[in-house]
């Protein structure tokens, strides 16, 4: 006898997704919300996550809940994070708030790998970061870091 209970997840922009309870419980945040009850515990709001990201997060949870021991799980994960840095950051944020450790570790490691071995300019370019230091502040920081060969 399998439980076919479903949960509806609602994103910040009002998109709704119906998922099996087992898949939804992969998020410890949702698990906690369900366990602590509430009048309407079959629809759960996830205001920190947009519809596009939530859809991807659900895809991740489905794969990991329904086929946790499959041989292609590693390659699924590798392909899953072959996305641009903006999507990656959205996934990291979503997995942080929804408390999905596997996805948080995966997206964190991918972002960390994108930082490694890059110069400051390359980091700013990859992540569209604005340099908000004054020239004096920047000079001071560079002096402190002169041991770091390719600052």
């Amino acid at each position: 006898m399998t439980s076919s209970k479903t949960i509806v997840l609602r994103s910040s922009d009002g998109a709704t997704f119906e998922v099996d309870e087992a898949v939804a419980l992969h998020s410890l945040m949702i698990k906690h919300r369900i366990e602590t009850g509430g009048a309407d515990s079959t629809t759960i709001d996830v205001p920190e996550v947009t519809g596009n990201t939530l859809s991807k997060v659900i895809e991740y949870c489905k794969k990991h809940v329904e086929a946790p021991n499959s041989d292609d799980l590693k390659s699924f994960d590798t392909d899953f994070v072959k996305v641009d840095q903006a999507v990656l950051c959205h996934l990291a944020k979503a997995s942080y708030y929804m408390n999905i450790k596997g996805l948080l570790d995966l997206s964190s490691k991918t972002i960390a790998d994108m930082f490694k071995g890059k110069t400051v300019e390359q980091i700013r370019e990859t992540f569209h970061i604005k340099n908000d230091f004054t020239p004096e502040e920047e000079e001071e920081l560079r002096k402190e870091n002169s041991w770091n060969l390719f600052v």
Partner: protein
Amino acid sequence: MATRSLNMLPEDCISAIVSLTSPPDTCRLMLASSSLRSAAESDLVWSRFLPSDLPQLLSRAHTQLGFRSKKELFFQLCDSILIDGGVSCFTLNKVSGKKSFLLSARALSISLSNEPNHWTWTTHSTSRFSEVIELKTISNLEIKGRIGTQDLSPNTTYGAYLIIKVSDHAFGLDSIPSETSISKDECAVTNTTYLCPMDEQKQQLGSLFFMNRRQMMEKRVVEGDGRRPSKRGDGWLEVELGEFFVGGKGEMVKMNLMEVKGHQLKGGLIIEGIEVRPKC
């Protein structure tokens, strides 16, 4: 329009990501923007780069360390600290975060080191330590050091180096090569070394007049490379004793330099200690 996507992440989330990189990468991230700087300077990040046995290490420090952040502590440790009552020195590598130790002459076991006829305890202006030991005259040279692998960084190959100077009035140090050995788990790896740097002129003269004698002496010791000391950046010389790998479990590693087969008097060797540091 470019979105500042990293900034949507909570700061402790960014710190957790940065902690997966390395100290140099983290310092570069600090230059990217003020919000990245704040995340990268967090104790959350620098705790990951500090050794896992930090409390034990700090309890061995010779003087109490003052630090306002884990980052500050990291760089203080990179600058070397004296430990174990000042007889050893600990350093963290800035780039890799791996540990190195320098055991002073006092931390080693040197045969007859307390006999003033043979050895003199003295000071040297360029030594890290308050004392170095100088050889007056001895027939048998036995220098032994030990270190537990639990004190070192795991999954790393370490080299052990005897740090020396050769005084102007040195004699007999290279009449026969010295034997070096590294042993772990009852398994020893041996080699041979000379204590004086290579001197071209002397080498040629030596070959001319003493070739037979040299060959005879070399036969007395174990097979080896007959290494020579190399110059260090701090003005001292170093003689490699060997290398070993630090795996999972804690083991005692013995690092020795012995010359007991020549029965020739020697003197003028100054020892600072044995350095144990990761090989690249």
